């Protein structure tokens, strides 16, 4: 089965953040090997300690934690996007692997399909 990389690049409150996650979960539910790359403002989805209910939103955090239940284990986070926002990997709620630009270029080649949201 061909593999899919979902690039998620919007902050957690943006509808596109949930759409990217839904896409990854749906593909995984059907047995597609899925990876997720958090890029640009998408890295903010991974910040620990979010309380989405306070702004009347469903918790994206809870849904993100379901990724491992859906066997989506290949999680990547753009190191540059983290640094731009003064963040470090230990502030993240998922064990996403920090990757540099050239590593991302290889990821784009590695996966059969790549989608940005």
């Amino acid at each position, binding site marked *: 089965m061909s593999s899919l990389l979902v*690039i998620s690049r919007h902050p957690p409150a943006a509808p596109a953040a949930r759409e990217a996650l839904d896409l990854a979960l749906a593909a995984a539910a059907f047995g597609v090997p899925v990876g997720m790359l958090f890029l*640009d403002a998408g890295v903010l989805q991974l910040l620990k300690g979010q309380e989405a209910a306070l702004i009347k939103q469903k918790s994206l955090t809870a849904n993100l934690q379901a990724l491992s239940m859906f066997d989506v284990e290949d999680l990547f986070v753009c190191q540059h996007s983290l640094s731009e926002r003064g963040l470090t990997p230990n502030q993240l709620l998922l064990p996403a692997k920090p990757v540099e*630009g050239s590593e991302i*270029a290889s990821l*784009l080649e590695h996966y059969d399909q790549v989608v940005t949201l």
Partner: protein
Amino acid sequence: MLHILRHTPQDTSRFASSLRVMGPKQGLLLIEDGVYALLPRTTALSALQLLPASVRLYALETDVIARGLAMDDVPKRVTLVDYPTFVQLCTQYDKVLSW
């Protein structure tokens, strides 16, 4: 892989990020507001010029003209394409990534 950029490079991080992750053998096609990356004397254009020569650059001619960008200002390494060529490029590259 062909990257397709359709947003203004000045307003979003899409442009910068797509360049950052561009592999040496990949292509970049500017369409819609993405063609504003061709505005002369901008950091966006300089960034395009700095891409390795192995990265092929394309822009959709219609979108360039529609936005009043001077054709003379379009750098030589950028190939202007029409719609049929746009489609052809999408099939020619193994993957297409829209930003």
